[in-house]
């Protein structure tokens, strides 16, 4: 209100004074305003807290999810890693037949054949298996893990896995027959395997057991021929002592006929 004379100033000040909330109303306004500001501040603080709590909860859920996913992946990774290691090891090792518990095998119906465990073969070419075999114990767990891993995750079992299972079952039966002193049945099973799985990855085991079965059946010339071929092909095989043991002690006399087995 510059450049106003006294009268003008007085009139305009009076107007301002009249058109303003009185002291009582102003005090009430102020009180309500402070309450409203306080309430607003509390509301905002609560909102911030809720937002922070939500953020923390979300972070916790995410962390949990990451942790669960990580551990699941880790398990999967470990399982697949073990399976891969198992198969790789098997692929590198020339022998699929690993000596088992000799005491239990020998006590088993007095047979000289050691206990044998069959381990899944690999799809790698046979040439890669021309290395010294591992003397480690059978690893049924590894086989179980590898199969379980794919089953757990709903992956369809491949036909190669089915074939492998069948081979394992067949050779396992032949091995059991040899340990049970039934080389005739073992030979029949091995021939069946030979017919059905010509390109088997368990060729080494099959050849060794055929030689052993033939010698046990007192078909020594045949057994020695198979054994010679075996030695030429697998000079470092762990099956050699068993073959030698079976064929060296056997005579060439014809064996007593085994019931239900057609000797070759």
């Amino acid at each position, binding site marked *: 209100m510059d450049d106003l004379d006294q009268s003008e100033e007085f009139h305009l000040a009076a107007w301002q004074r009249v*058109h303003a909330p009185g002291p009582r109303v102003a005090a009430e306004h102020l009180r*309500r*305003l402070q309450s409203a500001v306080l309430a607003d501040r509390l509301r905002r603080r609560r909102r911030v807290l809720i937002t922070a709590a939500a953020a923390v909860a979300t972070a916790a859920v995410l962390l949990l999810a990451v942790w669960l996913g990580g551990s699941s992946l880790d398990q999967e990774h470990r399982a697949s890693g073990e399976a891969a290691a198992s198969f790789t090891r098997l692929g590198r090792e020339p022998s699929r037949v690993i000596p088992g518990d000799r005491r239990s095998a020998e006590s088993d119906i007095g047979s000289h054949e050691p206990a044998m465990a069959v381990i899944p073969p690999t799809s790698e070419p046979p040439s890669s298996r021309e290395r010294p075999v591992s003397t480690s114990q059978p690893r049924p767990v590894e086989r179980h893990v590898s199969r379980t891993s794919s089953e757990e995750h709903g992956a369809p079992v491949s036909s190669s896995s089915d074939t492998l299972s069948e081979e394992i079952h067949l050779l396992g039966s032949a091995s059991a027959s040899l340990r049970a002193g039934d080389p005739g049945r073992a030979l029949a099973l091995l021939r069946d395997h030979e017919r059905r799985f010509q390109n088997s990855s368990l060729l080494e085991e099959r050849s060794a057991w055929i030689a052993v079965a033939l010698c046990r059946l007192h078909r020594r010339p045949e057994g020695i021929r198979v054994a010679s071929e075996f030695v030429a092909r697998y000079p470092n095989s762990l099956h050699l002592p068993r073959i030698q043991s079976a064929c060296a002690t056997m005579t060439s006399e014809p064996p007593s006929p085994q019931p239900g087995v057609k000797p070759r």
Partner: protein
Amino acid sequence: MGRERARLAGVDVAEAYRQHGPFVWRALLRFGVPPNTLDDATQDVFLVVYRRRRDYDGRRSLRAWLYGIARNVAQKHRARHPHEVVALAEDLASSTELGNSCPHEHAVTREAADFVDRFLGKLDKDKREIFVLGVIEGLYVAEIAELLSLNINTAYSRLRSARKEFTSALYRHAARDRMLTKRNG
């Protein structure tokens, strides 16, 4: 302005209310907020001030900023109470109190305020708000021009004209008073 900004940044809305509450209150009345919702509207304005206190950049006076907020709040209140819009000058006096003044002072103040109300009632609409903001509330012409979306020269011209009219009206009023005093004396 810098101090005002600093105060607002310090969230002293109460002080802002003490200094500018009546200005906001009057502005809301002129914007047509009904007297029965005037308290709520005033509170709403200062709540907005509190929430947006960091938006105040100090480029213009705090009053100009408050005026803009009051205009928006009044718009919302009018939309909420469409049948309670009041006339500007007519209801101003009836919605006020003068506090603890003596009766004579009260009468003189009321008479002076009535004179200004009558003047504002006769003033052209496009000059009325400029006069109130520029002459009574003390806003800068540039701010008034911006707030009312006017060319600054137009704002100056209208303000000058309103001032002249007010001076003339007051002169005539004083002359009439003197004549009456002589006649009665």
